[in-house]
Each structure stands twice: as structure tokens, then as C-alpha cells.
């Protein structure tokens, strides 16, 4: 398999700490939840290697990246090393000064802030009291300084009926260009609180239908790469292909659900390189000790994850007899791991056959066009 010489971007958990404890957090309780954060100098040294490897973009996340006292120093390091950056944040610690600083660098592609509801009751349900207001203040500070803000909405049992309100708040009142959605999935703390936070099959179908309708109403300004909206689109496409008896959908029929490890590498807060923050149990080496190029090009575990693209769905007992095989991607490897202990397997979480067998219904087709 052909692989580019070095990753285009890297996803860095610059801290394992966070000022919140969201009930569904994928970080806490995962292999990425480490005791010790790396020292400033270690990250700065690594940025030089990234520059040498011509990496273009750094994603700063965690935990909560704004918890790092030396964040400005780290960002200066990124800028000095000819890269751009994005921050994933809960927004509660973003002050006016921090927003002004980020804007002045001229290198920020955007800050992704998590908003889960249109009001404190729904946002704070999983994120903790007082955080809706704090996060909205953070968004306002970023917007005031002209920093591009993108919002991620994580859907769970307590906000699934507030999606209309969320769309109105973000797209009409705040005036964002768009926002993205996902659903709380079976990782980290979410595994312990699954009953309380994860959508039931009925709620999932409701979220799918509501989001497709809102996406149409707002001319495509709601997006998703996972969760109910993404599933709604891909499942309806699969169903249409099956009904029309199409031989296949190009690129499907194999475990092609994730292209991340072909472009990006991740690093945990303790400096251990991993294929993705959601697969932080697969340790590939340590920064500033192991050569990034060597790990990227030759690590056997990374190759194993990339080569899942060559594994046919028809090889799995799990998929035997399924009419959707030529149209399916087998979904997210990280969820296949948390659910079954094996990355190179279809994930049962986003399995259309299972959804239908459990009584799930797909939305009407008109909702797909927008």
C-alpha cells in the first residue's frame, strides 16, 4: 500500500487534564488518560521534528488544551516551525485575552468548541452546571476577535429532543456558518454511563430524522462524519443501492470506514505515538526517542490498521448473509475495538442490518436531498 512519506497533520493531546468531567467523555478511562503531561521543552523539540517532516497542521486537544499554562509558548513553537493549528476545546476557559492571542498568530484554522444544547438544562446535563454560559462566553470571545469557530454537538439521551433549538441557537442567533454532530459513543467514561447517556434505538432513529430535516431546512449547514446524521446518509444510500440491485458502491465491501491513519498520526499526553486518540491503546513509540518518519512508514501496527482496507466484509462471520456487504464500510475501527476487542472487524455500533433487525426505521428519502 502506498503511503505518503510523512503525516499531513498530527493530533496532539497536549494534556490529559480537564476542568470538566463530562459523563460520556471518551478520554477519561481510556488508554490516553495518562498520569503525566509532557514538559514544554519536549513538545517544542517535537515541533522541530514535525517541521522537518513538513507536517502542515497540528490539532491541539486533550483533555482540555486550554488547561495548559504554557499554551502560548506551545503555539509560538508551532508558528515558528511553519505549521498551522486547530484547537478542540470545551470553551469554558477561553478568555478574551486568549482569543486575542490566538487571532494574532494568524495561523489558527479554527477553534472547535463543544456545545451540546440550546440551554443550560440540556448542555449541562452531561457537562456540568454553569458550563453552558461559560462556553457561550468563550464562543463570543473567539468570534469577537475573528477566530473561526466551529461547534461540535455530541448527542445523548438528555439533548436528543433539543436539536431543533441547537440549530436555531447556533445558525440563527450566534450566526455560525455551520456545525457538526456526533453521538456519545462507547468509549472512555461513556462505557460506564452507557445506559444514561447513549441513545436507544428509537432515539437514534429520531435524531437521524430530525438532523436530516434540519440539514435540509438550513441548506446543508449541519455536517457529520459519525453519529446519527452520518449514519442516516450512508444507510439510506446503502438501502437505495440494495433496492436498485447495484453490484456495489465503489470503495465499499471492505473495511474502508476510516482513512485517518493514512494522513494523520496522534500523540498522547505522555508523548506516546498512537494511530488516533480513539485508538490510544496501540502504542507506536515515543516522541523525541523514536523517529517519526520511521514509525509512520514502517511500524507494523500502523500497517496492520492501514491494511484493514484490504479485508473483505464477506470474510466475517458477523456479516454472513447480509445484503448490504457490497455497500458497507464496516465503520469505525476504534468502536470495533471498544465493543469487541478487535480493530480489524466491522463495528456492530453502526451496522445497518442490526439497526433494522432491532426495529429501527430509516427516514423518508426526500430528507436526503438538500
Amino acid at each position: 500500500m502506498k503511503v505518503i512519506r510523512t503525516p499531513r497533520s498530527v493530533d496532539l493531546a497536549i494534556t490529559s487534564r480537564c476542568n470538566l468531567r463530562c459523563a460520556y467523555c471518551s478520554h477519561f478511562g481510556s488508554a490516553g488518560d495518562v498520569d503525566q503531561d509532557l514538559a514544554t521543552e519536549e513538545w517544542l523539540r517535537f515541533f522541530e521534528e514535525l517541521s522537518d517532516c513538513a507536517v502542515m497542521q497540528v490539532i491541539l486537544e486533550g483533555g482540555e488544551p486550554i488547561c495548559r499554562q504554557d499554551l502560548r509558548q506551545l503555539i509560538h513553537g508551532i508558528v515558528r516551525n511553519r505549521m498551522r493549528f486547530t484547537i478542540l476545546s470545551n470553551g469554558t476557559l477561553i478568555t478574551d485575552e486568549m482569543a486575542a492571542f490566538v487571532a494574532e498568530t494568524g495561523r489558527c484554522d479554527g477553534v472547535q468548541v463543544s456545545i451540546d444544547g440550546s440551554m443550560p438544562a440540556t448542555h449541562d446535563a452531561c457537562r456540568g452546571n454553569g458550563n453552558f454560559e461559560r462556553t457561550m462566553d468563550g464562543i463570543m470571545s473567539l468570534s469577537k476577535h475573528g477566530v473561526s469557530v466551529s461547534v461540535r454537538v455530541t448527542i445523548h439521551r438528555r439533548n436528543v429532543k433539543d436539536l431543533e433549538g441547537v440549530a436555531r441557537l447556533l445558525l440563527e442567533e450566534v450566526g455560525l456558518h455551520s456545525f457538526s454532530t456526533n453521538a456519545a459513543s462507547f468509549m472512555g467514561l461513556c462505557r460506564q454511563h452507557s445506559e444514561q447517556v447513549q441513545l436507544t434505538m428509537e432515539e437514534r432513529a429520531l435524531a437521524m430524522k430530525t438532523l436530516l430535516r434540519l440539514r435540509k431546512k438550513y441548506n446543508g449547514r449541519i455536517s457529520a462524519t459519525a453519529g446519527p446524521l452520518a449514519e442516516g446518509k450512508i444507510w439510506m444510500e446503502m438501502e437505495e443501492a440494495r433496492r436498485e440491485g447495484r453490484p456495489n458502491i465503489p470503495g465499499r465491501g471492505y473495511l474502508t470506514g476510516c482513512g485517518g491513519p493514512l494522513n494523520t498520526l496522534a500523540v498522547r499526553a505522555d508523548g506516546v505515538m498512537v494511530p488516533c486518540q480513539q485508538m490510544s491503546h496501540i502504542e507506536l513509540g515515543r516522541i523525541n526517542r523514536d523517529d517519526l518518519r520511521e514509525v509512520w512508514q514502517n511500524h507494523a501496527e500502523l500497517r496492520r490498521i492501514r491494511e484493514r482496507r484490504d479485508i473483505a466484509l464477506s470474510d466475517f462471520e458477523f456479516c454472513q448473509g447480509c445484503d448490504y456487504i457490497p455497500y458497507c464500510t464496516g465503520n469505525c475501527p476504534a468502536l470495533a475495538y471498544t465493543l469487541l476487542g478487535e480493530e480489524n472487524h466491522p463495528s456492530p455500533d453502526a451496522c445497518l442490518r442490526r439497526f433494522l433487525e432491532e426495529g429501527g426505521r430509516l427516514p423518508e428519502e426526500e430528507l436526503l436531498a438538500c
Partner: protein
Amino acid sequence: MPENDMPIANPLVVLREEFDDWAVLFDPDTGNAFGLNPTGVFVWKCLDGNRTVEDILNTLQANCEDVPKEAEQHLNDFILNLSEQGLVGYEIRKD
């Protein structure tokens, strides 16, 4: 363009060699990225501020087979395009 202009690559711009000698030029200040074919990569590496366009053409002819006769025009257009994008500047030879 004066004859003694010597194009020099903007040191802030990143050359990302990807596969099969193809590459991307990345300008971190704008976030813009431009694809380069293998000849473009060769030329980019010659933009060191010590060679005129004519020198670069000669280097290209010496190192590559089948350089077409329109190469000079292509080279001029290519460098002009890079300079319009802020990826290349000029140093005037002092002697």
C-alpha cells in the same frame, strides 16, 4: 523581468514531498497549498537566489531528458505564477 534577477524561494514556504516525486507547496501564513509535479519540485529546489532563470533552465536541461523547446516559456510562467502567489521573491545580482 530583468535578466539578472535570481528567484529565491520564500523560506517560510514548506515543500512537502509526498509520493512518486510529487509534492505540495504549503504556505502556512495563508494555509494555501499548491501541487507540484516532479519537474516543479526540481525547479523549486533550484530557487536558491544564486541562479537566474537561464541558469535553472540549463540545470534542467543537463539533468533531465527530453526537455521540450517550450521549456523556457513554461519555466518563466511557473516562476511568475509562484511569485504572484508570494512563494518566490527576487534577489538582484550585485556584480
